[in-house]
């Protein structure tokens, strides 16, 4: 089997996908979080500034999901097929809210009527909250395992995705995104909105710490299989420790009003938590609660070595380009938001 840096291709692609989803969480996380907090801003001008803080970048952020989804489809078609068809309803709801959110951003400021803007503000915020929760719900189900049967087909009831653990992970995701979004907006705003956001950021991080503790507790008590890897390889314990330290650092930075650093640490937290998830699962990608034999792993789900090799080449050429123009866009729109005639 071909290897690169001592890792086989499926493992490398597993890391690529992990990197993409972590990039997606960091980027779309802040605009979903900003959306989740939207209704806390009462003044029309505050809402427009908050919307325009994410205005030029939300679309580019969402592209990371398209790319990450495509990379999953390409590298592990069996995972893609089993996960998406097995969780049909949550993914359809995800699409529903994704479209509603895009419509809301696009159309909100196009009319001046109060009811019009209020309606789109509500749908923007509700959609942002729902998307954050749904992302967490899917992650929760991946962690706890789903009823995968022969041929990788889901054989459970369609409502099973709404189990307590998945919902708890969903709420935790919402809390983390809200913190992340508040910190992003703090870098982009001034005056009263800024003052309000510094309170919201404080509440959001407390909300996150509470829900995250519950998830951790639940995992340790009810889902022991997730901790096996750490028992086998104790040195990996450094990763969750780092994640906890990173989380603990966020309220410290918020109280010192170092919001930019706080934002960096909420981003680091997301990456580290996803690394924890990756460590817990690897090499399994979809855990079957029916029989271990039906587990979908990176090896029985991977595309051929040839295909993975091509895609690794594409990724190696493309990634520097993507990072370069993402950086260019964020640099162009650096600094506090100013409304002009091109704004939403």
């Amino acid at each position, binding site marked *: 089997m071909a290897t690169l840096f001592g890792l086989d291709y499926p493992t490398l692609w597993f890391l690529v996908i992990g990197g993409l989803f972590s990039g997606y969480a960091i980027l779309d996380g802040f605009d979903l979080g900003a959306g989740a907090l939207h209704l806390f801003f009462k003044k029309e001008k505050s809402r427009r500034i908050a919307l325009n803080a994410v*205005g030029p970048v939300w679309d580019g952020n969402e592209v990371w999901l398209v790319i990450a989804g495509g990379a999953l*489809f390409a590298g592990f078609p069996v995972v893609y097929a089993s996960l998406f*068809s097995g969780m*049909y309803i949550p993914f359809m709801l995800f699409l529903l809210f994704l479209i509603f959110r895009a419509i809301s951003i696009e159309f909100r400021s196009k009319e001046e009527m109060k009811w019009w803007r209020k309606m789109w503000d509500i749908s923007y915020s509700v959609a942002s909250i729902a998307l954050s929760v749904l992302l967490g719900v899917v992650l929760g189900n991946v962690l706890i395992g789903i009823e995968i049967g022969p041929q990788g087909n889901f054989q459970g009831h*369609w409502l099973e995705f709404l189990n307590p653990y998945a919902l708890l992970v969903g709420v935790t995701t919402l809390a983390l995104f809200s913190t992340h979004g508040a910190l992003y907006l703090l870098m982009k705003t001034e005056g009263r909105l800024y003052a309000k956001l510094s309170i919201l950021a404080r509440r959001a991080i407390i909300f996150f710490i509470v829900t995250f503790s519950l998830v951790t507790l639940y995992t340790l008590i009810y889902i022991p299989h997730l901790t096996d890897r750490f028992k086998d390889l104790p040195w990996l314990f450094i990763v969750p420790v780092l994640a906890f330290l990173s989380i603990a650092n966020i309220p410290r930075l918020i109280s010192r009003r170092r919001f930019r650093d706080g934002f960096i640490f909420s981003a680091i937290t997301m990456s580290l938590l996803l690394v924890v998830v990756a460590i817990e699962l690897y090499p399994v990608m979809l855990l079957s609660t029916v029989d271990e034999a039906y587990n979908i792993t990176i090896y029985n789900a991977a595309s051929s070595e*040839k*295909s993975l090799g091509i895609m690794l080449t594409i990724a190696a050429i493309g990634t520097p380009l993507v990072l370069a*123009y993402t950086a260019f866009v964020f640099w*162009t729109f650096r600094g506090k938001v100013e409304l002009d005639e091109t704004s939403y």
Partner: protein
Amino acid sequence: MDVEILSRIQFAFTVAFHYIYPPLSIGLGLIMVALEGQYLRTGNKEYHVLAKFWTKIFALTFGIGVATGIVMEFEFGTNWATYSRYVGDVFGSALAAEGIFAFALESGFLGVLLFGWNRVSPRVHFIATLGVWLGSMFSAVWIVVANSWQQTPAGFHVVGEGLDARAEITDFWAMVFNPSSVERLVHVWLGAFLAGAFLVLSVHAYYLLRNRHVELSKKAFKIALIVATIVSLGQLVAGHASADGVAENQPAKLAALEGHFEANAPADMYLMGWVDKESQQVTGIPIPGGLSFLLHFDFNEPVTGLNAFPIEDQPPALNAIFQFYHFMVAFGMLMIGLTLYASFQWWRGKLFKQRWLLWVFVFAVLLPNLANQFGWFAAEMGRQPWVVYGLLRTSDALSASVQANQVLFSLIMFFLIYALLFALFIYMLNKKIKHGPSEDQLLDHRSRHEEMAEAAGKF
């Protein structure tokens, strides 16, 4: 209704709705590049104003295109799991390339294109516009490559059997340049240019008729007319090449396009007609031996007909395929006639003096858009009963774990949300057109600060 038909309706509906927008974006992108290029070249502010105006419309089509585009990617997994497992290995690299080379490019620069007018220099802005346009063009490349692979699979081998069978890539470039991808890509690109150019023609014809933005509209109309004339003629060549390819690679589809039943006989070409599947008769206006001539330059050369294939390998919806195809061709011909006539009038110096012609252009925007839709319907329905031609049947490609009522739920959901989306799109488009280009910039030379203050006051 069963899962198969519901899933097919859902995919067809969501992809057809989506496909209203990307061609407009690609076509408008081309016009915007031309307008900004003209501005940089001549320094004439009018082009700048026009570029800004069309960027606003572009933002609308692009935004809806993105929001509705992700739906199909998800549907591969949710509704067509067996298909996803089958094609993932081959499809994957095309999709990954699309994501990383195309989407990231267009969405990255989109922010600068839409919101960067006051933040970057005109030259950098032009580069951003070019980036977004090229991104949308690349996006078409990879999607058409993937779809063409389903029509004419190449560069792969099949491993496993029965439910475990799947295609594995053996030659990336053979997959990319599969027998139909180049001709179909050109056909799709040109169709998109026409959609954009005819929208510009339509809107500016309307302004001219209403005596608004007259000088601007004449400039924009002429640029769009040049594009539309050249491209509609080019489409004749590209369309012909595409049909030649179908004849060679997918004979059953070609036979369905012209309603040609006899297994091995000279084939007629119909200007219009009605296909009766039971009696194997086409009623209409034929050019005897026309199809034989088009393919072989000989009216008597036999062409493989539907009866040469077992019934289970024939496309089922024969009349629909025939109609979609013929309307597409007819609309293409109308566009050629219309743009040539208008160019001739321009040459005579009478282009803007004939109000009826301008009225025709106001409504002609429907021609390329319907032709694009109909062409895809003919292409995809003509591929049936296969999802991957000759390899995987559509009925075998479904998700085993999804039930009909779930698909019915999502189908109704998409109907409702897309109805709302379409209503909003038409409403906003109408509003932006009514508002028109902001010519204030041309009238006086106030400082940017004053302009911004005024704009801020409006909200």
